């Protein structure tokens, strides 16, 4: 700390005040639109159906009902399995893609790739769903035609198959989101100091050494942050599943969010639906905390 600042107490106060003023608008918004509605989680302990109808406190009844409900457990395990798939298969994709794009010397090609992979992000999930239904249709879909061309069975109904539906979810998620993810990594990669590479080259370090010793450490912070953000995002995946699932694959695709949505808005059991959401939040809290531990152990960097 520089002597000037520590001596001038007033300056420090002014510094703090300015920082708090900068933070204030966002915090006010968070209180008004995030923390006040979070009070609604108390509905978990009631049999609330509507705020204008009489209700009473039922203690842990909603949680007991959850424990007994086979649908809840289906959704619970699906949430864990699907989240796991997303983290394992989707999460590294934007990093790899950003690194590969970073290797391109041709600026316009780089930009073209970047733009093309970003376009699907503008498609709503309903549209992505219908695109995939067409691509994966039995017999007439392109994927099945290609499989048939190489001598495989061309009548796989991917969208209705209990084995294939989860891979389809992950694939379509990657297809739509990966361009969006790479933007952040490209921004992070642009901050890596080029002189470091020059120095490494003088030392005779090859590509992999540079990758491991310079590139990845430089964007480690971003990777860890994105891991946290992705973790919380995968627990919220909802639109995609809602529009892509069909009855034949309910048992492998129904997740806690879709379950809570159905119970809350279709079945009007708000108390119960809130309890399910609360549990989902606790689950994702648990995931984030354990990921924090792992991240600390491996990267020596905390997620939080």
């Amino acid at each position: 700390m520089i002597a000037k600042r520590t001596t001038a107490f007033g300056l420090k106060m002014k510094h703090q005040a300015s920082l708090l003023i900068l933070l204030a608008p966002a915090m006010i918004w968070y209180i008004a639109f995030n923390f006040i509605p979070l009070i609604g989680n108390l509905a978990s302990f009631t049999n609330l159906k509507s705020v204008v109808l009489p209700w009473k406190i039922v203690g842990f009844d909603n949680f007991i009902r959850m424990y007994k409900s086979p649908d809840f457990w289906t959704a619970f395990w699906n949430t864990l399995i699907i989240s796991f798939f997303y983290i394992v298969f989707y999460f590294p994709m934007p990093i790899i893609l950003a690194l590969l794009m970073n290797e391109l010397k041709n600026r316009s090609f780089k930009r073209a790739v970047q733009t093309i992979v970003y376009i699907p992000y503008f498609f709503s999930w309903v549209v992505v769903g219908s695109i995939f239904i067409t691509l994966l249709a039995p017999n007439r879909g392109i994927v099945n035609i290609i499989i048939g061309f190489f001598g495989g069975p061309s009548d796989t109904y991917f969208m209705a198959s209990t084995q294939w539906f989860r891979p389809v979810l992950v694939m379509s998620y990657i297809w739509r989101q990966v361009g969006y993810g790479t933007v952040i990594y490209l921004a992070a990669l642009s901050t890596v100091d080029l002189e470091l590479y020059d120095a490494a080259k003088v030392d005779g370090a090859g590509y992999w050494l540079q990758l491991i010793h310079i590139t990845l450490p430089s964007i480690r912070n971003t990777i860890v942050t994105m891991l946290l953000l992705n973790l919380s995002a995968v627990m919220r995946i909802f639109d995609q599943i809602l529009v892509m699932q069909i009855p034949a694959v309910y048992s492998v695709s129904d997740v806690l969010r879709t379950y809570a949505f159905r119970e809350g808005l279709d079945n009007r059991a708000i108390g119960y639906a809130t309890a399910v959401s609360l549990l989902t939040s606790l689950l994702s809290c648990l995931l984030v905390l354990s990921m924090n531990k792992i991240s600390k152990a491996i990267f020596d960097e905390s997620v939080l």
Partner: protein
Amino acid sequence: MPLLPRSTKMRETLSRRVFVILNIVFLIVLCIVYIVPIWNVVITSVADDTDVQGNVYLLYPKSFTLKAYLRILDGGYFKAFMLTLVTSVIGTVLSIVFTVAAGYSLSQKNLIGRRVFMLLITITLIFDVGIIPRYIVVSMYKMTNTYWAIFIPMLMSTFNLIIVRNYLSTVPESLMESARIDGCSEFGILLRIIIPVAIPIIAAVTLFYFVLYWNRYTEIVMFINDQTKSTLQVLLRTLMFEGDSADSRVQIFDNFKMAVMVMGMLPVLVLYPFIQRYFISGLMLGSIKG
């Protein structure tokens, strides 16, 4: 940012060359995987009705007509477009101002209560606000069915806030210290030092926010009852999927559906290259080193 700056005259090894070629091939294949469906969308949107009926998948254009586009333009497109554009721009500006200011504040290690603030923000990431409590507060603030409901309730994205904060916390402390010593206020530092350095991330987040506002659908449907205050996506989706309801009375052909999709994303797509310039290049590197 090429790994091998032109100044260094190093001999490329064979494996390096193979890697470069494989990389290019891979990215081209990837682009094809992306382009085929997008290409199909575009050529379907300009095809005649008769060419898109039934389960066809067009890979090359069979006909060319702008009929579908003209129909969309006739159907109240401009009004909804202007409303969406104005609310998206205002919303994005507000969001960016709030996010960068808060992100900067939270990135300062000596901020009082920083850990508490960060904890609160992480809570919003984990504890999801359901649509019903959100609707209730929006209704409580008398915002339902007003223009405010289009952007105020979803102003901040914790996702973006954290990205900005983390990016800003990598800015070397020495930069700010020297400015402080020169008597620069926090706002001055933010404006003159931080923002220029953070252009790539601000560009990226601007894009994220704008796309978020632009594509917003469910919240608009839930918070707005009056169609005249509805955004473009609501109008477009209504037009696109009205054939799918059991009691629908009109037939929507694929060419119209796809034209709707193109019209929905065209404005953002036009904007995209302008923003892309800022986050794809390493131009800002110089300023970091000061």
